[in-house]
């Protein structure tokens, strides 16, 4: 039970950590001052959520580990985030598409997690959902601006949606920890979110005059620790200080 809850919490939190790291790496590199701050604000929101989850996970683990240990001292295969959030910042269209495809899921997920019988998870969900509601507004807005913008912005937006589409189905896969937590009314049954998710996504893509990809072949693996080649590079950045100067502190 404890192990399942621990893994379940990491499964949620790792998505926010990895996406937060991706967005945070835009600091000083956003396409304009305003979008730069918006993207890094999103990153900070996500890191804030991660801290709450990891602090709780550290408590569940019951040994001496801290939130920082959980964030910084795991190996690639021990991260349980979905493949979608680790995909690189190829260009602004990919950044927005990744954010959008995750935000729609994240909002629906947190809506359900608020009903969890675990009071800590329910409280984190209630606190986070306002932030995520804004993230979804921001990313949906940009999908529409770029999709229904110029010929070039539309082509780039469509390419990004097509490129990331293959990672969307994994959001609705259940792990063993998921199933155990759903059985105890602690976890969210993600399989039930799938239909609503594609309805929202398809509606916004249609409004943006973008095509809904027809691909029926989907990638999976992140939730059980099998990642794309991009995660290793991200982690070497994220964990650089701890690897170079073990146990450093400031």
């Amino acid at each position, binding site marked *: 039970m404890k192990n399942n809850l621990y893994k379940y919490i990491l499964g949620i939190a790792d998505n926010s950590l990895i996406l937060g790291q991706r967005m945070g790496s835009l600091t000083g590199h956003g396409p304009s001052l*305003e979008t730069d701050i918006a993207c890094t*604000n999103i990153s900070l929101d996500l890191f804030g959520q991660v801290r709450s989850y990891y602090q709780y996970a550290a408590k569940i683990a019951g040994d001496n580990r801290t939130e920082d240990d959980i964030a910084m001292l795991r190996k690639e295969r021990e991260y349980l985030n979905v493949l979608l959030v680790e995909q690189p910042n190829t260009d602004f269209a990919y950044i927005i598409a990744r954010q959008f495809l995750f935000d729609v899921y994240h909002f629906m997920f947190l809506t359900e997690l608020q009903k969890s019988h675990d009071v800590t998870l329910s409280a984190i969900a209630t606190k986070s959902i306002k932030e995520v509601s804004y993230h979804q507004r921001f990313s949906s807005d940009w999908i529409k601006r770029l999709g229904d913008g110029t010929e070039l912005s539309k082509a780039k937006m469509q390419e990004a949606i097509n490129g990331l589409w293959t990672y969307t189905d994994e959001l609705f896969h259940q792990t063993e920890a998921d199933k155990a937590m759903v059985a105890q009314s602690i976890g969210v049954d993600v399989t039930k979110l799938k239909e609503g998710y594609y309805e929202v996504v398809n509606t916004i893509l249609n409004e943006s005059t973008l095509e809904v990809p027809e691909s029926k072949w989907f990638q999976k693996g992140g939730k059980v620790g099998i990642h794309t080649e991009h995660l290793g590079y991200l982690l070497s950045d994220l964990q650089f200080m701890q690897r170079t100067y073990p146990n450093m502190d400031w």
Partner: protein
Amino acid sequence: MSTKKNWPLWEVFVRSKNGLEHRHFGSLHAADAEMALENARDVYTRRNEGVSIWVVESKDITASNPENNGELFEPAQDKVYRHPTFYDLPDEVKHM
């Protein structure tokens, strides 16, 4: 990038709490009013500075000409009786 067009400039006004007036906070670039509001939220209210935001495109503001400052403002300088400085304000009255 010679064809790149810059987004127009917008002025941002934020009301920091209910009961106070909106005050000029700064400016930013945005493609339209909706984006200006969202950008203002991100750029100027990240530290819980506000409860309400106004944005107005900078070109829509009519400004006084600094060359006219003499006739516009100087005549008021020696008319001290126009200031309510002869009243004692209680400490509880703030924002006067």
